[in-house]
């Protein structure tokens, strides 16, 4: 940058000011217009009373937050299990050689089937089916079946993410590891997987956003989590406001995670450039 370039930056650039103003006006017009249309719709007073009732909102929120702790338990536990089981599936799929064909087939079949079945069905089948077998204590916490079902479903997705990461590592890395005498599993553990995991953190987090939201499906087998609690509240007050409150809670929890993912993706994309630029200056210093 020349000194002239810096001097120009001192005062606000009139073009930048003008485009900011245009953006502001256009935003106000669009959203204001939409709000005006909704608020002046013939049914608005009724909708406002049953969906955006301040009193009901304030009354139900503390209970909803208590119930949300169950959702947090569900996704925190399931996420840890998914990270492990998904990786195991991915490694099973990446084993080459004819001996490992049955293992590859098993892993392939697993990911196909569990990506094909709607998650809520898996939750139903496990939540009502396993207790029905009579093998486990009928008083077993339904949350455990919920966690198990979410783990089975999301591991199928996450194993695909891991696999893409493993396949993105250049074969020369494995050649280097094997040439030093490391076994296939040691190469995976110390060389391939650590690099692969770093590359797939953004898509992994994306799957976890889905997992967080799908914890409400566990309500279908009788677990009182935030969605079930909202149903109870709603039935008691003849009002839909608790559902809107649930939506707000999820927005507050999920949006920061979404932005973290976007930031990580942007950082990875930009990451290569400063490094490449650093090389010549480093050589110059030698």
């Amino acid at each position, binding site marked *: 940058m020349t000194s002239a370039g810096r001097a120009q930056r001192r005062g606000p650039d009139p073009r930048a000011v003008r485009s900011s103003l245009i953006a502001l006006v256009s935003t106000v017009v669009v959203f204001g217009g939409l709000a005006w249309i909704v608020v002046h719709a013939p049914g608005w007073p009724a909708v406002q009373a049953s969906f955006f009732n301040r009193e009901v909102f304030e009354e139900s929120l503390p209970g909803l937050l208590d119930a949300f702790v169950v959702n947090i338990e569900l996704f925190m536990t399931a996420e840890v299990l998914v990270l492990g089981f998904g990786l195991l599936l991915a490694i099973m799929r990446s084993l080459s050689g004819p001996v490992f064909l049955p293992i590859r087939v098993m892993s392939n079949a697993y990911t196909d089937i569990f990506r094909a079945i709607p998650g809520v069905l898996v939750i139903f089948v496990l939540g009502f089916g396993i207790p029905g077998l009579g093998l486990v204590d009928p008083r077993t916490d339904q949350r455990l079946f919920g966690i198990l079902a979410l783990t089975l479903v999301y591991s199928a997705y996450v194993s695909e993410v891991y696999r893409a990461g493993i396949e993105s590592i250049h074969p020369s890395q494995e050649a280097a590891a094997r040439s*030093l005498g490391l076994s296939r599993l040691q190469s995976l553990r110390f060389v391939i997987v650590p690099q692969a995991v770093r590359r797939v953190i953004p898509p992994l987090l994306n799957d976890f956003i889905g997992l967080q939201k799908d914890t409400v499906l566990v309500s279908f087998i009788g677990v009182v989590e935030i969605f079930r609690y909202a149903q109870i509240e709603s039935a008691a007050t003849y009002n839909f406001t608790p559902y809107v409150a649930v939506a707000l809670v999820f927005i507050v929890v999920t949006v920061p995670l979404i932005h973290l993912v976007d930031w990580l993706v942007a950082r990875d994309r930009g990451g290569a450039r400063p490094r490449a630029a650093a090389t010549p200056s480093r050589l110059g210093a030698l």
Partner: protein
Amino acid sequence: MTADGAIAAAEALRIEGIHKSFGSLEVLRGIDLVVAEHEVVCLIGASGSGKSTLLRCINLLESVDAGRILVEGEEITAEGVPLDRIRRRIGIVFQAFNLFPHMSVLENVTLAPRKVLKTPRRQAEADAIELLARFGLSDKRDEVPDRLSGGQQQRVAIVRALAMKPDILLLDEVTSALDPELVAEVLNVIRELAASGMTMVIATHEMGFARDIADRVCFLDDGIICEVGPPEQILNEPRQPRTRQFLQRIIEAGRL
């Protein structure tokens, strides 16, 4: 026994009738070569003549279709030979370094001794620090590979291979990916290794270097060893027309 003067020393590596194809492309068409202990053999030849494939076969990174490879008399191409145990005796350094980018220099060097030889961490690190110092890399031990110059990265790759104390070191065009001003520092490391008696098979395009360092030079052409002999003979008075042709092209390109 051959009459090439290498018979006095013990035999480090024996290659007999190696064939290797990738699909319908026959890359190695019957290679025979004996390397004595402490001998340095340079493989020269055009790109695609089979130099790299031969080295990868010796390290068992590629399986051979026919023929045998023996290391100190033990056949390593036999059925059921544990590959990992063989590979730790034969080090290889690649053209593109292939360092592990997620590890520091020290971790790159100590990984295999710790996990394969089960050397205790403290011992492995002490050995690595000594090797790094020997090759002028002491101050780089905590850097990640991306922060090093190409020449430094390649020297680390050599140290990483040496940390396994291999019987034989294979070098696959280790200066081809380097900027010209960084070639010398890597070649000097290899000269020092040769002086210390390391048995090496080196695929290279650096003819001047081959002349300096090699006990014998092999000219590979189209998957066979076309001519083999002392560097002065191969590079100054080649007997085979194809060797003369190849060297003529090298001289025209100003590389000799």
